């Protein structure tokens, strides 16, 4: 039983930390969404497709 509890706790903690990493990254990249158009134009300019 203690082994089972430890196993469940282990999985729960892994999921919690995974969620934490995902949340941080989603919110981090969310701030750049309004600037996607700027990035697109820059990439087009660099690869020579104009704007």
């Amino acid at each position, binding site marked *: 039983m203690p082994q089972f509890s430890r196993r469940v706790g282990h999985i729960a903690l*892994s999921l919690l*930390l*995974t969620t*934490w*990493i995902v949340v*941080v990254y989603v919110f981090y990249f969310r*701030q750049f969404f309004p600037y996607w158009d700027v990035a697109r134009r*820059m990439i087009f300019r660099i690869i020579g497709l104009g704007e």
Partner: protein
Amino acid sequence: MILNLIFLSLLLLVFTGMGFRLLRTLRLAGGSLAQDLMFALALGSGITAYVVLGLGLLGWLHRWIIIGAFAVFVVASLPELHRLMLRFWNAFNDRTLNWPGWASIALLAALTWFVLGNLVASLAPPIYGDALTYHLAAPKTFLRDHQISFIPFYTFNLPFTLEMLFLLAMVLRNDVLAALIQWALSVVTAGGIYLLARQHFALSRRDALLGATTFYAMPMVTLYASAAKPNFGLALFTLLAVHALFNWRRDRRINWLILAGIMAGLAGGIKTHGLFSIAGLTVLAAVEVLWIQRRDFREALRAAGIVGGVAGLVVSPWYLKNWVFTGNPLWPFFYSILGGRDAGPITYMHLRYQYDSLLRAASDFILGPWRLTVEGTRFGLHRNNITPVFLAFVPLVWFRASANKTRLRRDVALLLLPCLVYYAFWFYAFQYGAHTIGVLPLLAVAASVGMRRALASTSVLRTTAGLAIAVSLLFGLGVNVIYNAQFVPVVLGEQSTDRFLEEKVVYYPQIKWINQNLPLDSKLLVYTHMGYYLDRDYIYGRDGFQGHIDYDAIRTPADFVRRLQELGITHIMWDSYFFEGTANQVKERAGGDDRLRRIFATLEHERILVPIYRSSARMIVSKTLDWGIPSTVVVYRLDYPDPFPG
């Protein structure tokens, strides 16, 4: 291009040789070669900077004196470099090369790409705004005046340790060499992260490289590594101060404490924020004695006193200079308490609200790291954004820790302590994102411990962590390519320097006209901030940022003309963008009286201000995106009336 790199190598070798001499004097040489090289380079650059400062304060900033002093350094460093060469050779011969693994090779390749990308940008003529305003403009002015004297512009009296090296670079070669120094320090900082992670956190090559590479992949690093700015001096010296203190924890030799103090002091001489590093290091020394070594308060005070005392001694010349020049060591800060010559009109600190979107409550203090990561614009610009790697992975250090990892957790806690002290000062002082750079390398080391833990975990966490790290690196790669691509044509010679500067530097064509047409003894009042490319004497006239002209005391055209005559101004470079800001601020303070515009109109009408050049210009908003807004530049000649109006 090649010559610039040769000169950079020469500078770095001489710094290392000089610093190694001091390291041997402190009996601290003999650790790993990489550690010795890093400390030697940092110490040597500090020694050189302080010698240039000394020459400047003595009024000896003449080309031949500086070159002579540097020649002495070259000669003095030769025996030390010979010693280091022998050690390098022995280490190279003794070493058996182990296969580092594909992950390490991939990380090293990524790091090399970032480093080379930033090198390309460093080789271009300087265009970064702050560099043109003061990091390069101040050394150029000091060199022209042959001395370091008091100039009442808000940033010309900051601690300038790295700017002294920029000055040396400008004498020996050019301003590109100055930018290359910052680039070199950025690379050494990445190396310092690797070394601290390896030596004191027992991380594998791969995990230490993860810390160094994710740090270097940050957009903030890409944007600053190639600019003639002192950011990486602050980052490197703070990192090395902590490294020296961790060395002291290991072998308790007091000289490591002294070296930690020297490094922290040098950090304090780079930027005012370096004082936060000194505070952090002092607290760290005290906590180590009390908490880890379990010794009494007196011992803690002694350790903290050594670090703080030595750091204070090293940093003191900059603040003593200000005290002698102005009466306020922290000029122009704390004017209301400490006063200070010509600091009254400098009110730009009032503008800081634009970066103070955080409130000062305890909850805001706790939420700060989250906001710094996910809301970069609240702290200046997106470029001040901090990689999500720190926030995502540093907390993982405290999860899933088995009993034998307690010591590692404690060491990471100690590593984060100076970060916390630094953050506290930053939080209550000036909340600008880029100023956190002083402790970001420390966070990178802590994050690499967290990343290792995640990568050694269950499959779902390992996969997510791997993806997250890869996404950070790819995002950094994209920014690195987009940002640095703009410098490639000028560095390869496909675009002329003039054309490049016309595209990237605010009012460059107009500045060029001034350089070609105004008499050599002209002195200009300019309303733009970026005066570096002006080859005439000039003062900045923007309200709130300088103490030359107190606009509140200027009530009539005669007041203004009198002040300009006192300052020896012969011409004014007026521009619609920056002048508007100044005129609006003066109007607001004068209760709606549009005084400054009226004064200019009157003086132009009376032919005291005579327009000799008018041009449509472009106030550049984004160099990378080539965005600008239309403006107008007028150069006025001042025909002082005789007799002078009453």
